[in-house]
């Protein structure tokens, strides 16, 4: 018989206060209260100085307040603390994108996606940057990979369909849009795009 002496003998004792503040920061970010989010992330960072999470949060809050330099510093600290932090790379990519440095933004989104293939923010950011640069091959590949892993994600399906059309592949675009509308028949943008694809196909016939 082993007498269970404590409720949490196996529990990390150090993480709790940090976790409360980080969660609170994330909630404030979600409701757009970036000042409170910043306060929470700063306290969390002091309690978990080796954790990248609060710095990512600080970066997001600073970006939302249009303080791109502050945001960049925060994301860079997060990257230094954890070079495999996908969110920090995505944050740096967003800053590059806002500064219209699209090639750099593309590379950073790519890095972020390599670290976290599930990152929808990186994927959609990469999509936007690709549209700005007019080069679609790489992003199409990543969207296809993503959809193989998340076959019902209609936002990515729509992006992929749009890219196929821009890349001169209306047949593939039509297939994806029909699948999308089967999943979400009221998707107005998809219906409109399908109309456009049909016109294109009719024009080329």
């Amino acid at each position, binding site marked *: *018989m*082993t*007498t*269970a*002496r*404590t*409720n*949490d003998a*196996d*529990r*990390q*004792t*150090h*993480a*709790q*206060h*940090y*976790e*409360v*503040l980080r*969660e*609170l920061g*994330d*909630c*404030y970010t*979600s*409701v757009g209260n970036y000042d409170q989010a910043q306060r929470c992330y700063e306290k969390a960072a002091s*309690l978990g100085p080796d954790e990248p999470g609060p710095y990512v949060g600080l970066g997001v809050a600073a970006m939302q307040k249009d303080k791109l330099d502050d945001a960049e510093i925060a994301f860079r600290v997060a990257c230094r603390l954890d070079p495999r932090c996908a969110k920090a790379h995505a944050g740096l990519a967003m800053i590059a994108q806002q500064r219209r440095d699209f090639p750099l933004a593309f590379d950073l989104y790519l890095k972020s996606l390599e670290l976290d293939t599930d990152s929808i923010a990186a994927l959609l950011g990469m999509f936007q940057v690709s549209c700005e640069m007019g080069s679609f091959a790489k992003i199409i590949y990543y969207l296809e990979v993503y959809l193989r892993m998340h076959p019902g994600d209609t936002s990515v399906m729509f992006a992929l369909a749009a890219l196929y059309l821009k890349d001169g592949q209306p047949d593939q675009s039509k297939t994806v849009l029909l699948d999308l509308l089967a999943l979400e028949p009221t998707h107005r943008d998809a219906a409109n795009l399908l109309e456009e694809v049909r016109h294109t196909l009719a024009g080329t016939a």
Partner: protein
Amino acid sequence: MTAPLVMPDSSNAPRDGRSARCHRVSAESAKRGPLVTVLLPTYNRRRCLAEALVSVLRQTYRDLEIFVVRDGGEEVSDIVRSFPDPRVVFIDRKDNRGKPFSLNEALARARGKYVAYLDDDDVYYPGHVRALVDALEGPTDCRAAYSDLYKTSCEAAPGQDRRVLSKHVEISRDFDRFLMLHFNHVLHVSLMHRRDLLDRTGLYNEQLNILIDWDITRRLSFFSDFHHVPAVTGEFYSPVGESDRISCRQRKDSQEYLRNLLAIRTTRPPKPWPKMKDLSIILLVDRPDERTVNVMLRIWRYTFYPYKLLIPLSAADIGRLNVQMPNVEFVPVNSLSSPAERVDAVLRRCEGDYVAIVAGNAAVEEMWVERPLYTLMHSTAREGFLLEGATPQSWAAVLRRTDLDQARRAHVHLPVEASLAAADIRVRRPKEEELPFQFDDLLLQAKLAEADGDWIAAARLFERMGERFGNQLWMKEMAARAYFEAGDHPRAGRLSGQVNLERPTVDTLLLEAKVCRRQQDFSTAIRLLTQAEQMLGPHVYSPAHPERNCCSI
């Protein structure tokens, strides 16, 4: 305001001496409620003492007498004097005599109906004393009560504030007398008991230097049930890294630990014991030899249930057996007497409610007698239970003394085992489900399931345990956490919400908030997390900013 009452060095003062200077009773105390004595011994923790004392002075329950006992070490009179409250009695002793001595020193002067305890690095929340007084003054026959406390992990550099890293409720178990004999599940700082219980238990054992609190709660459990108030009413600190607690350092000395442990386990407060049944162990040996001594020593080492060891021997053999151990009584018998006659001789003078009969070659190890004894205590049938390792050649069992007495009187010429059978008293082995500490065994199973990643199995076990064994808030919290990990967020949210309605803790608020956040209910999540953050907030004495410590008492 009156200055705190300062006692001179009183280590040589008579224990029962109640100095007239100590007799300061608030004129209103009789009207408002019973007087509660709070004992606050201190040794070399100047930096924490003020915070501890402030937490007592801030109690919403006002009828207190507060003994601050300096047990040598650093000078603290300046700190105590900085709180000009007539309820504070300061015993300023320069030599270090240990915590039990300090507690006894204050208890000798205490006048409260109830006694509560606070260590110099811990704090009460303002409602602590009120919650326990209400529990004890309410409709209960318990004369002791306890609440839950946060274990607060913190880090602090010299001269800096303590920084709180986490607050967990580490122990929240309903009172269990059998468990109390094995493990102290009542934190001393959360304890309040009637002072007159100490007339029965005796004072603190000044020979102990660790497990002092368990010693007193164990002895209290002979005389009273304990009322569990499921509310977090204070904190005890746990510094990150090497603990400065004296008890922690001394626990590392295994010999010293064992000495203390055995001293506690063999303490038998004076009878009658209204809440504890006594156990007599009869050790039957033909001729005492080295093996007998070994068995006796193993009984001493491994038995945690209160017992008295009775050994029927011839006068010559008693003279030959040289063993120094407590709670042993030799019963003189004729050297030619049979085992049954020896048992009969012991029974004539044995006080135990239960009797274990053990052969001289018995296998004595952890729980050797407690397992069948527990089963017997919970049996309503007329039966006894074989001890582990009992064989037909080496028969060993535990029985109710009344049953054994009756069987022996009715069938005095039969061997013991045969007399029991003749008296229709069945002796059998306990079934697995009848053994003690079922709750702990299931808890271990649930923890193993968690470690294997089988969160659903763990959650269901926790829920079942709560239904069957009590400790409901604790089990609900554990189940909620397991369901969350399993991805069943609605159930995790429901369970943690139920706990938060009754006894919100940082952990349960955090868990419910995580569920709300995942359900996009950010406003509720923010409310819960803000509450959690407040709970984690500074409850600190700030040596760096002394002005912050001035409280409006």
